[in-house]
């Protein structure tokens, strides 16, 4: 462990032998050859990789071009189908959707009408009894006020047949609405409060169609028919000479009154989004109360009674006020009031209904327990 070698071992190095000149040359040549070989290999590898990348890029490009081409083609086809200007008198996408919705709405009305007719034809004698009883009940519901008008020769400045005209007008409004919306379309708070609104999410139909569809033209039209009959009798016996334009005005006023009733129902139904259990029947409470209150002639009543019934609780716009317009007992400017009110209440109810719907979408409803029953 001592001597010269010991130091080398200790340092951990082995002193290399000094190469001879020919050996050095050979060594350098081998080294250069190895380097050249490595360089060639690297170059080849790099070239291969570059080639591969280029090929991949080409493939990608080709794919993108193909995809773009297909998309362009598809878009072109769609544009031809839905586009703004279809070659053969086509419609925009929005227009087509609306048309399809309306078309489906009428198809569904037809299906409801067929089902209603089927129930009528199943047992005609039975249904005749039902319809007759319904007409009698409609007439008896308004007979109290008419008998009062008959006994006293009229009420509050309206003669007997003017009162009958008013009662008939109200019957037509409610009769038509019940015929068209008796399947809970007129009572949206029931749909919302019972959690049935969620069923509508999965139906392939627009909400508007699902909400408004439902008609009983054969078994549910007794109120409408009795209203038309009474209106005819009232016009026939009335002393007031109606102007030539009154049938058109009658249809317009009927439409306005119906809009007001539906809008009021939707406005109050917005509450059902927030309190589904408590407000499940709020639309029926409002509509039935309006239906009962519409029969009172407001002529002769003080203004502090009349104004709330024409604004806050618009039962006066269901029969009395339109009757006054049709009989020419109002001033020109006042004639526009029902239409303006209908417009306003429609906007207000649309706003609050959308707002309630927004709340409902975030919070949901908990009417159904896990077993599927409604709480």
């Amino acid at each position: 462990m001592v001597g010269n070698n010991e130091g080398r071992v200790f340092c951990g190095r082995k002193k290399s032998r000094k190469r001879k000149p020919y050996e050095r040359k050979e060594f350098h040549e081998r080294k250069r050859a190895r380097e050249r070989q490595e360089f060639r290999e690297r170059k080849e590898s790099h070239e291969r990789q570059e080639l591969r990348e280029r090929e991949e890029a080409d493939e990608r490009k080709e794919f993108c071009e193909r995809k773009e081409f297909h998309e362009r083609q598809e878009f072109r086809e769609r544009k031809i189908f839905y586009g703004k200007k279809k070659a053969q008198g086509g419609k925009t996408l929005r227009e087509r959707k609306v048309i399809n919705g309306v078309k489906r709405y009428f198809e569904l009305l037809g299906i409801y009408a067929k089902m209603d007719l089927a129930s009528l034809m199943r047992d005609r004698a039975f249904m005749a009894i039902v319809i007759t009883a319904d007409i009698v009940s409609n007439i008896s519901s308004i007979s109290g006020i008419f008998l009062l008008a008959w006994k006293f020769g009229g009420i509050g400045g309206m003669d007997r047949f003017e009162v009958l005209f008013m009662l008939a007008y109200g019957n037509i409004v409610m009769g038509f609405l019940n015929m068209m919306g008796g399947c809970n379309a007129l009572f949206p708070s029931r749909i919302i409060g019972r959690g049935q609104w969620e069923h509508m999410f999965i139906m392939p139909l627009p909400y508007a169609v699902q909400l408004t569809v439902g008609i009983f033209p054969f078994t549910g039209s007794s109120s409408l028919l009795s209203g038309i009959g009474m209106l005819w009798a009232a016009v026939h016996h009335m002393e007031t000479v109606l102007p030539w334009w009154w049938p058109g005005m009658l249809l317009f006023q009927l439409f306005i009154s119906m809009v007001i009733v539906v809008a009021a129902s939707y406005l109050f139904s917005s509450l059902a989004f927030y309190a589904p259990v408590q407000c499940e029947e709020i639309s029926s409470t409002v509509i039935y109360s309006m239906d009962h209150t519409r029969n009172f002639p407001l002529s002769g009543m003080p203004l502090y009674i009349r104004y709330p019934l024409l604004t806050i609780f618009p039962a006066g716009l269901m029969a009395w006020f339109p009757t006054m317009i049709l009989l020419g007992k109002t001033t020109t400017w006042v004639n526009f009031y029902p239409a303006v009110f209908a417009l306003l209440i429609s906007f207000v109810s649309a706003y609050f209904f959308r707002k309630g719907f927004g709340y409902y979408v975030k919070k949901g409803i908990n009417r159904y327990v896990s077993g599927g029953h409604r709480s």
Partner: protein
Amino acid sequence: MVRKYMITARMAVQGKTGGGILYMLPDIVMKVVYLVPVMFIWRTLAESGYEVEMSVAQLLSYTYVNALLTDMMIVNTYLSAWNYDTRSMEMFTRPMPVFGQVISRTVGEWVPMLCLFSLPMFLAAPLLGIRVLPETLWVIPSLALSVSLGFAFEFLFYCVTIRLRNISWLTYVIRSAVVSFFSGTVIPFKILPFGMDRWMNYQPFGSMGGAFLSLYVGSAEAMEVIPAQLFWNVVIWIAAAVWFRRSRERMVSFGG
């Protein structure tokens, strides 16, 4: 004996108020909204100078008391509704008579509205210038007979619903319209034209709310009203019991 009916009535009260007072508010508001124009009709007629068989004070009291006790004047149970959501079937599974169940449950459902609407309005009546104290104490048996007759009609109409293959909505509409006119709760018989009051008083619906209200405001005598009410109670209850016994086996119910 009575306890089980009391408990049923209490359950009905809880069922009615379980959703909170908010649930009852729309009904209360609508009752007030309906009451106001009816009362002003009488004032309008009085101001027009027409001669009416009843004074304005009587007419106002008539309408006002009718609004306060509206549930009792024309009895409406949920019998028809129960028929399509199977609760009518449940009535037969309980160890209680069906008649007793329906009556106790309906009476329980009246209580919240009597406390929240009728009582405050009764106390507020003097402020509105309306006389609400009865003219005679015969109104107490008359009210009992009127309510009893209302329940009898309810069972009769329930049998109609069963026979009409569960068209309960139609039965309800017909009954509401016919009964509200023929019971005389909205328009008193005494002021109807063509001398209709002479025979309207003696038809069965006339012994319901209208008879009690006439007695209440003093436009009819107890000796005319009470015997008619007794008679119709006996007749209609027998008819209801017999027809119900025959109809209940035809009862069909489904749903839930």
